[in-house]
């Protein structure tokens, strides 16, 4: 539980909430998430999972859109309101000191874990963090200055929009092949599950680095492995099995995800 410091309106309806959460700030690694209490309840009853987007001292930031009752309440919070947070939870991206070049692929709100990832990767010794960021239209792109946070050294953002309003005209996945012509040590992706599936398919056509991970999403009840609600299909022991997004993910090696199985599922109702 910590006090809200600010709720910033970003272009395109994105919201960035920052709160004083010392425990989360001290322990969260890029790709891990926190379960946030959006209100006193009972509507919404459950917490909502958010990647930790940024850490500054004892402060943590989260980026989201108003998609339902929970995110609307969060966006309406004011400085001084108390925010309940449980975390860090889940498995984050694999960052190692040997990684020099890292390519991140962010579809829409999939931008959320990458400001923190870029900073943590740079601190570990990465010299080139290239972020491919796509959105439907320019207004919905996460601002570049928020990816780099005042220190753009070694961080490059390449944008794409579906409607050609900025950057590459087309899908962010289209940028992968060209970007991976340079030797790359790790690829990290975050975005809607169909975009991640397309990313995995594209990576299979190029010489992808051995570390290729995706941050997936699934409707969650608890966020810490108890309700068993957030099952995702994975390859295991020569067959397929369910893995819990909250405990075995949200970040998983791309080759372990059963992308065909994921595609075949009915769309999750996340609002």
């Amino acid at each position: 539980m910590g006090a809200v410091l600010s709720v910033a309106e970003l272009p395109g309806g994105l919201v960035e909430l920052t709160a004083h959460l010392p425990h989360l700030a001290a322990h969260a690694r890029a790709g891990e998430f926190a379960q946030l209490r959006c209100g006193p309840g009972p509507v919404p009853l459950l917490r909502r999972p958010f990647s930790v987007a940024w850490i500054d001292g004892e402060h943590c930031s989260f980026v989201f859109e108003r998609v339902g009752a929970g995110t609307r309440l969060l966006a309406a919070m004011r400085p001084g309101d108390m925010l309940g947070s449980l975390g860090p939870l889940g498995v984050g991206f694999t960052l190692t000191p040997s990684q020099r070049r890292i390519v991140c692929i962010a579809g829409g709100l999939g931008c959320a874990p990458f400001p923190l990832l870029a900073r943590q990767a740079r601190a570990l010794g990465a010299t080139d963090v290239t972020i491919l960021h796509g959105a439907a239209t320019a207004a919905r792109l996460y601002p570049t200055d928020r990816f780099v946070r005042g220190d753009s050294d070694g961080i490059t953002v390449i944008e794409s929009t579906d409607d050609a309003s900025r950057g590459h005209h087309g899908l962010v996945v289209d940028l992968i092949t060209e970007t991976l012509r340079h030797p790359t040590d790790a690829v990290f992706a975050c975005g809607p599950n169909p975009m991640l599936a397309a990313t995995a398919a594209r990576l299979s056509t190029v010489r992808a680095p051995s570390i290729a991970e995706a941050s997936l999403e699934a409707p969650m009840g608890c966020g810490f492995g108890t309700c068993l609600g957030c099952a995702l299909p994975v390859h295991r022991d020569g067959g397929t099995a369910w893995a819990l997004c909250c405990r075995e993910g949200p970040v998983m090696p791309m080759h372990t995800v059963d992308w065909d199985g994921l595609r075949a599922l009915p769309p999750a109702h996340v609002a």
Partner: protein
Amino acid sequence: MSDVDLRVDLGRGCVLPNPVGVASGTFGYGFEFEQLVDIQRLGAIYTKGTTPLPRDGNPPPRVAETAGGMLNSIGLQNPGVDHVARVYATSFAQWSVPVIVNVAAATVEEYVHCARVLDEASGIAALELNISCPNIAHGMDFGLDAPSAARLVQAVRAATQRCLVVKLSPNVTDIGAVARAVEDAGADAISAVNTYVGMKVHLGLRRPVLPSRGTGGLSGPAIKPLALAAVARVRAAVRVPVIGVGGIATTTDALEFFVAGADAIQVGTANFADPEVSLRILDGLQDYAQSAGLARLTDLRWQPAPLPA
């Protein structure tokens, strides 16, 4: 120092240190919560529904939030009774919190098999027979009519000396009749209630949000008034201890269940939103009983006046 006697005697030597348990399916086997809260202070852990063989569970989506509640269709994902008896129970035996293993199966023989396997293990305080799972084929078969429920309880009763709790389905016409039947068949205590069958619709897709059956089990504060009514009906029908469960998220909620006739309670869905809620309710019950001068929480029980002829 507390003068309040919080212990709950479920029978056959199973005495819970306090009445605040955590409901099956909302607490796993305790291990996930061990990292988050002091689980040893709980009155009991009712485990995830445990079946004769391991189960992978249902395809997602498995959960859907509703107004003040949630629907789940997990499909009893669990590692199977052998794993629970051989591996998990060795941890249970080290714990001070009583662990009550929730057992679910499709036939009388399977229930009996599970009871026998669990009889071999130490660290298990009691069994809770789940005759009320709405999310698997035949999950509710035994819970929907009194004779079937009685036949099952009789068979398991004959197979084990362990304390036997039976968790009833609310999806019946007369829960009191089912309660009386399982009491007569040898149940030591009754948990009331499991989830209510419910549906959430995805209007854009013109289909239910949850796949396969389209339905799931509704839990959370939304069902509390329904669960209170069910507990009162069960209380009126039986003499054995009644464990109230359904939508408890605060101390006040828990106290209401004691008024309705419960001897103990289970906190369920609220654990997902707040892992500390059960212990807070325990502290709250103790404070309330002390300030109200109660010797025991069951002193809160409502005694309904006889209905006019």
